[in-house]
């Protein structure tokens, strides 16, 4: 059963067409890899899916609902969570706070509870903190102990983990990972792959779309891959087939090399 169905999605800025009639689908529990050179429209796809960009044409159906016209926060509440290519954590806030924000949409206490029924609020916050600890511990057992530190004080890889935890905290149905290995060295990338494996095991029903430049990562985490170039989908299928696709080779390696 298909969780996400994108048909003919087109996004343009002024005269520039960033996404041109793209069709993409993801099944429940599936991990889809997205590859393509810089500026090929991968991140634009994410921005359109999460409601940051408005689509010029096409439709996005998610869990049986049409997303067109919904605001970003409403889409997030329907169960689409994401990370960003360059981290968008609030560096001055604690790691826990950064994760808790992912849970706020599901909160059960309101403003009046915060002021007048403090016990109820603190109980809920306690549960939330516990769940945040649990999420952090999935990736790194030492992280929960640093949960009350400002996230800016954590090393790069742990920040990325906090960002993934923030996305998972909302109990999404679909997780969008935008180049999780960006700016990482090979060891860190290996750790990240292990982290993604953990996500897969812990949340088998979760669908994931991952944008990656690192083919090694893509091959390791996703069975099905789509390739983009100039805002169009140029190939789709198993990793090996897409990687061998002439248009994909051309897009990545340049015309001359591809012909050779």
């Amino acid at each position, binding site marked *: 059963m298909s969780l996400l169905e994108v048909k003919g999605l087109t996004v343009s800025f002024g005269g520039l067409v960033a996404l041109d009639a793209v069709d993409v689908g993801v099944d429940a529990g599936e991990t889809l890899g997205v590859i393509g050179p810089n500026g090929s429209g991968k991140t634009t796809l994410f921005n359109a899916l999460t409601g*940051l960009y408005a689509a010029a044409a096409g439709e996005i159906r998610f869990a049986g609902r049409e997303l067109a016209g919904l605001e970003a926060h409403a889409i997030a509440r329907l169960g689409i969570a994401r990370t*960003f290519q360059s981290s968008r954590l609030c560096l001055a806030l604690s790691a826990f706070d950064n994760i808790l924000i992912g849970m706020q949409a599901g909160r059960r206490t309101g403003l009046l509870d915060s002021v007048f029924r403090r016990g109820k609020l603190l109980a809920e916050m306690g549960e939330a903190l516990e769940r945040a600890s649990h999420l952090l511990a999935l990736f790194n057992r030492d992280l929960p102990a640093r949960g009350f530190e400002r996230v800016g004080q954590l090393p790069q890889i742990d920040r990325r983990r906090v960002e993934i935890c923030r996305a998972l905290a909302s109990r999404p149905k679909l997780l969008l990972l935008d180049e999780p290995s960006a700016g990482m060295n090979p060891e860190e990338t290996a750790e990240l792959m292990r982290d993604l494996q953990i996500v897969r095991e812990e949340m088998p029903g979760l669908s994931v779309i991952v944008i990656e430049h690192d083919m090694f990562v893509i091959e390791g985490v996703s069975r099905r891959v789509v390739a983009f170039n100039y805002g169009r989908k140029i190939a789709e299928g198993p990793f090996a087939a897409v990687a061998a696709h002439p248009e994909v080779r051309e897009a990545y390696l340049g015309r001359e090399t591809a012909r050779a």
Partner: protein
Amino acid sequence: MPPLELLLQQALNGVMLGVMYALIAVGFTLFFGVLDVIHFSHGDIFMLGAFAGLSALLGLKAAGVAGAALALPLAFAAAMLVTGLVGVAAERVCVKPLARSSPLMTLLATLSLGLVLRESVLIFYPRGADPKPFPQLLPQGGVEVGGVAIRYENLAILAIGFAAMIAVDRIINRTRMGAAIRAVAQDPEAAQMMGVNLDRTVDATFFLGSALAAVAGILSGLYYSEIHFIMGITGGVIGFSAAAIGGLGNVYGAIVGGLLFGVLQTTAAALIPRGSEFRDVVAFAVVMLFLVFKPSGILGEKSVERV
């Protein structure tokens, strides 16, 4: 409906005011261009320019230089030098050190620096709390054209104001420093790689913008025959408003914005009951509408939010 002559008269007065506003707004827009900051004490530098000009005129009078033809240019030069240096100092103290923190920090710091300048004039200028009479040095009298009174004094103010604007245009478009300013405004890093000295360019920009504020300050003194230490608050807010409705970063936008604000004020004064009291309410309301519905301004480029 007021008669056409009245409207024309008000439009002329609006252009008069607008020239002064435009000179302030050009500073705001230049600073925003090179450093992406709002230098909020700029209004008080305008006020400082007026006081420096007045002091220079009084000093020259005491020294026996009485003729307007000599005293006025000297006063302009002195005031421009003073505000230029103060502007550069303000940039070095309040703007550059905060360049790496959030832009709001600069806004708060320069807002406070403006307070410091204002209070300094209030406290340290002799009897600073009182409005100061400004000598009338421009030719008096005037002619009437089709029911519209044109005073020579106003013509002189217009001429000086437009001369200053043309000078800015020449400096920015025809000189090496102007080229550097434009390059930094477009892309500071690329400009630096092309061999532009960033610090010197920023200093030059602040000197230029602040010197223009001094021209506006003296013109304001000549126009109202009076200056007051609080004139910088309104001057600053109007200058910033003009730069914003013109499109921050665009020098011609600032000029258009300044003229528009002036005309808006005077026509509002003519068209609505008790207009002279409420004209600024109308003008600021229009500014608010602009910021909400056309935040890029009249001549500004539309910026795309990057994710």
